[in-house]
C-alpha cells in the first residue's frame, strides 16, 4: 500500500495534527485530573520540583497516586517500587496492543521505545480511535506529537497550578474528578476493536468490587487478569462455534 511512500513533509503535518489534539475534550479532562494531582502532592508535602519530576518520569496518573500514597505511609523504596510496579502492569498489554498499529518495517526500534513512554490511558484510547483514519507510516509522527504535547502541557499546568490546586470549591472539584470515569468508560467502549473487548469491559467493571473485597491491594491487577482472560476465552469459544 502506501508503506513505501513515506513523505517527510507529510509526516510533519501528521505530527502537528497530533499536537493539535491538546485542544480536545479528552485532553482537557486529563488536564483537570493533573490539576487535582498537583493539589494532592502539595497536601502530601512534596515540593513543586518533585511533583513535576514525578509527573513527567512516571507519566501515568494511577502509578503517581500510588507512589504518593506509599511515601505518605513512610514505605521503603522497595515497597514503594513494588506497589508502583503492580499498578503499572496494565501498561504492558496496552503497549503490546498499540505498537503493531503504528509500526512499519522501516520504523526504528529506538523510536518505538521512546514513544512508549507516552502510553497512558488518555493517549492510548485516543490513538486507538484516531489511528483508523491515519495512514500507517504517519501514525508514529501523530502519536509523538500528541504524546509530547500532553506531557509538556500537563507538566506546565502542574507547575502553574501547584499553589492553588487544593483551593477549588468542593462542588467544582467533585465535578472535575467525576469527568475521568465518565470519559474513560465511553471512550474505552468506543475504541474496542472486537466483541471480546466489550465483554472484558463489562466483566472488569463487575469483578472490581469482588476483588476489592478479597484483596484491596491487588484489586486492579486481579480484575484485569481474570476479566481479560475470561473475556478472551469466551470469545474464542464463540468463534469456534461459528457465531
Amino acid at each position, binding site marked *: 500500500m502506501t508503506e513505501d511512500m513515506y513523505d517527510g513533509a507529510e509526516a510533519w503535518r501528521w505530527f502537528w495534527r497530533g499536537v493539535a489534539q491538546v485542544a480536545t475534550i479528552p485532553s482537557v479532562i486529563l488536564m483537570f485530573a493533573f490539576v487535582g494531582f498537583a493539589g494532592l502532592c502539595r497536601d502530601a508535602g512534596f515540593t513543586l520540583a518533585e511533583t513535576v519530576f514525578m509527573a513527567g518520569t512516571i507519566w501515568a496518573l494511577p502509578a503517581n497516586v500510588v507512589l504518593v500514597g506509599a511515601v505518605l505511609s513512610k514505605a521503603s523504596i522497595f515497597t514503594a517500587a513494588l506497589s508502583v510496579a503492580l499498578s503499572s502492569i496494565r501498561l504492558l498489554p496496552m503497549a503490546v496492543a498499540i505498537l503493531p498499529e503504528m509500526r512499519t518495517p522501516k520504523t526504528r526500534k529506538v523510536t518505538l521505545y521512546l514513544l512508549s513512554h507516552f502510553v497512558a490511558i488518555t493517549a492510548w484510547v485516543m490513538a486507538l480511535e484516531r489511528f483508523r483514519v491515519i495512514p500507517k507510516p504517519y501514525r508514529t509522527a501523530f502519536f509523538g506529537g500528541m504524546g509530547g504535547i500532553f506531557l509538556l502541557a500537563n507538566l506546565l499546568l502542574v507547575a502553574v497550578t501547584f499553589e492553588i490546586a487544593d483551593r477549588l470549591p468542593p462542588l467544582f472539584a467533585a465535578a472535575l474528578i467525576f469527568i475521568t*470515569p465518565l470519559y474513560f468508560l465511553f471512550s474505552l467502549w468506543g475504541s474496542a476493536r472486537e466483541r471480546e473487548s466489550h465483554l472484558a469491559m463489562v466483566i*472488569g467493571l463487575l469483578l*472490581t468490587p469482588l476483588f476489592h473485597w478479597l484483596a484491596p491491594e491487588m484489586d*486492579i491487577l486481579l480484575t484485569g487478569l481474570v476479566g481479560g482472560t475470561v473475556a478472551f476465552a469466551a470469545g474464542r469459544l464463540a468463534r469456534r462455534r461459528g457465531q
Partner: protein
Amino acid sequence: MTFTAYDAPWWPFLFILLAGWLPTDIWRFLGVYFAGHVREDSAFLVLARTLATALVAAVIAKLVLYPEGALAGSPLALRLSAMALGFLVYVTMGRKVYRGVIAGEVLLVGYLWLSQHVPH
C-alpha cells in the same frame, strides 16, 4: 530507605526514579519488546487488548465505587446513576463522548447542588 531517609537534595529524585519511573516504564519497554515478536493477526494481540481493557475497566470502577477527595462524601447510588445515565446517552445519542459526559455531570452536580441548597 524511605523518601525522607537522606538529607541530600538529590535523594527524593533518585527515590522517584527508582520507585516510580523504573517500575512504570519497564512495562512499557517490555510491551514494545513483546509487540516486536508477535504476528499482527495473532490471538495474543486480542488477549493483550482484553487484558488492557479489563485493567482500565477496574481503574474506572474504582474511581466510581471508592472515590477519594471531593467525591468521597457523595452517595454511591448517585454516582452509579450518573454513570448509567451518561452511558445510556452515549449509546443512544450518536455515540458522542461529550454528550455522555455532560449527561452524567448534570445529574451528579445537580443532585449535589440541590442537596446543599434545599432544606431537608
